């Protein structure tokens, strides 16, 4: 049936008028204090669309057009970027900022444009019954907290009873996201949770690490971003905290988070929602994009953690666009149709392998109710001498029985505040 639809689509394309471009705004940050994370993500995001255009002739025959808008990781600028680009026919926004996400949620819902916040943003947006235009597959912050604890359980013979775990977090909406989940998990597993906040930007963390040194926790879990990560890794090394017991979330697990500390960062662990490695798609990007002089950046980030994640985000957007084209029988899809495509997205191992990205992410499917995907994540460890992240685990599933009720509770409170009627019934 899918083949027939594709053939019909191709036939329609062959005889129809010239197609408009499919517009994918890239709300990037290549300047400012968070540029080191923003640049590789944006490079990966844009390079993948360039690859699809050059190698495949676009998405279902329609060329993808990326409009880049610099936000500087600034919420006001992010909203300005949204307002400036939405009239271009934007199909989906991926702002790479929880602050911008919170501002855009009511706007995209009113404008009918989907918002994809992969592993960040408002966690309870996973509930599609309430958040019609917001998607946060394949995983969210609460999944990440659960995955971290499940990993620690596996390391401790399935018991964390009596263990001391510190959450070191960026003192922002983003950093506070996992607290509720970790509190629930601490009740369930009997570990002692201490939360320690670090103010923006996080260049000075002496007090926090002195406290950690005094309290001697068994593990430190970190929710950091930007300079906070590099300083935390260095401070952990300074107080000689065992690096193998220090676990960052997936926004604290890129190469640049550990390289400034040099050898001292060896053994530091981090979650990841996408596996890194030598994927076949990189060779295609090198040939069709970089060697053709169409790279978004200088090409040096190819294959890095955040480049891979940006590319993964673009791939998920392309696959959702393809799904939308199949669903609606047209290549020239609208934002509303793109939303439908995202809601019907199905990522299988076979599909990822065919795209040259075998195992990059977990298998998952999106539905009207579930906009959050499977929530799975891996744990990786930094090898300082080889300067590579080594995956330690396969994809670990979160505890839906813990995170699920929290998602329902938070999203229903949001629905009540905003008079949103439940969908999918």
């Amino acid at each position, binding site marked *: 049936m899918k083949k027939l639809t594709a053939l019909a689509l191709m036939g329609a394309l062959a005889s129809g008028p010239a197609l408009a471009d499919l517009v994918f705004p890239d709300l990037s940050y*290549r*300047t*400012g*204090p*968070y*540029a*080191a994370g923003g*640049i590789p993500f944006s490079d990966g995001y844009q390079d993948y669309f360039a690859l699809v255009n050059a190698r495949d002739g676009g998405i279902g025959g329609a060329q993808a057009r990326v409009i880049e808008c610099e936000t500087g990781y600034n919420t006001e600028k992010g909203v300005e970027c949204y307002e400036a680009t939405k009239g271009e026919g934007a199909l989906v926004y991926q702002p790479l900022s929880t602050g911008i996400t919170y501002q855009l949620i009511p706007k995209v819902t009113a404008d009918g444009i989907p918002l994809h916040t992969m592993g960040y943003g408002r966690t309870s947006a996973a509930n599609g019954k309430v958040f019609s235009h917001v998607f946060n597959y394949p995983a969210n912050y609460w999944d990440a907290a659960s995955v971290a604890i499940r990993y620690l359980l596996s390391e401790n013979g399935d018991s964390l009873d009596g263990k001391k775990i510190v959450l070191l977090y960026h*003192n922002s909406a983003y950093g506070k996201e996992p607290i509720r989940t970790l509190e629930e998990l601490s009740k369930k597993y009997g570990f002692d949770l201490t*939360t*320690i*906040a*670090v*103010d*923006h*930007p996080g*260049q*000075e963390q*002496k*007090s*926090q690490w*002195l*406290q950690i*040194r*005094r309290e001697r926790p068994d593990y430190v879990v970190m929710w950091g971003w*930007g*300079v906070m990560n*590099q*300083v935390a890794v*260095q401070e952990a*090394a*300074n*107080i*000689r905290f065992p690096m193998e017991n220090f676990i960052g979330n997936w926004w604290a697990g890129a190469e*640049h988070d550990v*390289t*400034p*500390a*040099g050898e*001292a960062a060896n053994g530091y662990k981090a979650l990841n929602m996408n596996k890194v490695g030598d994927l076949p798609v990189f060779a295609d990007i090198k040939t069709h994009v970089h060697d053709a002089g169409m790279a978004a950046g*200088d090409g040096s980030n190819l294959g890095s953690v955040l480049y891979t994640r940006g590319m993964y985000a673009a791939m998920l957007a392309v696959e959702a666009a393809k799904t939308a084209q199949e669903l609606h029988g047209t290549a020239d899809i609208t934002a509303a149709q793109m939303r439908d495509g995202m809601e019907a997205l199905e990522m299988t191992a076979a599909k990822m392998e065919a795209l040259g990205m075998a195992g990059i992410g977990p298998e998952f499917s999106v539905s009207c109710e579930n906009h959050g995907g499977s929530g799975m994540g891996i744990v990786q460890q930094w090898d300082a001498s080889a300067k590579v992240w080594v995956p330690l685990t396969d994809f670990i599933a979160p505890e839906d029985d813990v995170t699920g009720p929290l998602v329902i509770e938070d999203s229903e409170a949001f629905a009540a505040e905003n008079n949103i009627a439940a969908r999918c019934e």
Partner: protein
Amino acid sequence: MPDQVLFAMEVMLNGLMAGVMYALVALGFVLIYKASGIFNYSQGVMALFAALTLVGIQQGQVPFAHLINAVFGTEIHHFGWHLPAIVAIILTIGVMIGLAILIEHFVLKHLVNQEPIILFMATIGLAYFLEGVGDLMWGSDIKKMDVGLPQGLSEFIDTTTYNWFGYGFFIDRLDIAATIIAAILVAGLVAFSQYTKQGRALRAVADDHQAALSVGISLQFIWVLVWSIAGFVALVAGIMWGTKSGVQFSLSLIALKALPVLMLGGFTSIPGAIVGGLIIGVGEKLFEFMIGPLVGGATENWFAYVLALLFLVFRPQGLFGEKIIERV
């Protein structure tokens, strides 16, 4: 001794060390304000620019490589050398002096006799310009600062305090190095201003612009001199903070830590910057230690400003600032 007292002593010592790091940044502001009455908004970015330049020169990075490659289709990135730290530092000082000359020539010279707010606005423009040029010259990657400074737990202090109290204090060796360097820097600055002709000229301009000009002191030279010294101080601050966090664009935000120090110590006093830094460092760390857990933590950023404001209530000119009396 009770554990809480020992912990408080450790926190206080670390606060003093952190205060020295803040004072290093504040010093650059004081030097320029004292000599020219300009609040140099770009001091933090100068520290970033100096650190980027130092690492770039040391690692043999080709400046503006991305721009050159994009325009000419070349693939050049590195000169292929790795310079000793001291050579790279000397070359970076040269760059900062060159920058001071350019700032005087293209910005300050055209703003002589303008209101202080105009000069302040010019330094805001300078900050954004330098941030952009730094990015274009050296790229946005986070770089490792490697000039051989020690880092990590001081075994000596840990062992000694353990033998004394049964609890080993943590003091970062980088903070000890920063304290020694700051002491040398302040002694050098004081000696320069007291015992050299240029230093005396600098003080003369700081005391009275008009009088200094009337005895033949070149304002142009003094501005280049003071911006060069501020550039050098920015380099020292950039090295220290860059070693702590890697050289990255958030380094420019260290200026935020200097503002309460300046408010407290006064904008015109070098000892004020040091004492202000120490008071802020100790105050914020002790507050975080004692009150932080009761109010959810992360108190340091705002408490530093509260502390500075409290001092301002009683001494509006800061601890060591000059009292301004205007009779009408």
